């Protein structure tokens, strides 16, 4: 139980640092487009989750329909994860944001996504059993 509490505290700490970096990268340069990274990374686990619900794990017999839906969810998740890195890079390449803002928003986005993913990992096992 204490391990769970420590996990929650450290995860929320990392999440706060991630948000800090992203907001700093926006506010320091008065250019608020990098906030889109947060939206991307919050949306990233959603397709996986929705498609995991849609697929029925019972019908293993025909590997057609159910696995295709799960694969589609994975594909969308992979798309969104790279989108979170590519978006600041695109903005920085056209000098809409500066290079330090790009680096800060990428690191912040990775921290936020890592928090979301590890939160799912830590607390999914308890749900299943």
């Amino acid at each position, binding site marked *: 139980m204490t391990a769970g509490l420590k996990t929650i505290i450290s995860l929320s700490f990392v999440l706060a640092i991630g948000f800090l970096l992203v907001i700093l990268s926006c506010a320091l340069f008065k250019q608020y487009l990098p906030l889109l990274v947060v939206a991307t990374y919050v949306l990233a686990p959603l397709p996986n989750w929705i498609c995991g619900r849609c697929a029925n794990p019972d019908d*293993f017999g025909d*590997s*057609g329909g159910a*696995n295709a839906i799960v*694969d589609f969810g*994975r*594909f*969308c*998740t*992979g*798309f*969104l*994860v*790279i*989108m979170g890195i*590519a*978006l600041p*890079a*695109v*903005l920085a*390449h*056209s*000098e*809409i944001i500066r290079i330090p803002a790009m680096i800060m928003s990428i690191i912040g986005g990775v921290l936020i996504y890592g928090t979301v993913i590890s939160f799912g990992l830590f607390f999914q096992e308890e749900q299943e059993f």
Partner: protein
Amino acid sequence: MSEERLWKFKKPEWMNSIMARSAGVYAAGALFSLAFFVMVDAAVFSHSPLNGSDPPIHITFIDWLPLIFSSLGMLIINSIEKTRLSADSFSYSGSGVAWKARVVLFLGFASLAGGMAGGVTVLVLKYVVPGTVWPTLYMGVANVASNGLVMLSSVVLWVSQNMEDEYAYNLAL
């Protein structure tokens, strides 16, 4: 199963694991995203003040067309049920499903290859022949790169879906 094998080299063991399969699907999504954003980057760059081409060259709908065709081809190829392709089983070849699947698959591959060829065409006709220099030439190179990435993505997705069939077969035994 082992006697039906065609090639001398065995498939490595790790390729049959379910982890490798889902990693392949994620990687396919990542590659497709990379392809899309390379093209978006070229479009954003062309409308930013950095684009210093003298008769101004911008990314228009023409530049997007090869990527649209490639993506359509990828969608077609990976929507096909792969088990329908083998006409060896009588149940499928009887109603002509395998034949239909091959025609549709051919259309998909043609669309994918056409997208790649269209990317090279845009690069040559719009950027190389008028003799543009690097920062402008990048927009054409990005076109070819993004079509190549879509191709790579569909190859990865195809391979990992075939892995899945193998896995299901092993499980069914």
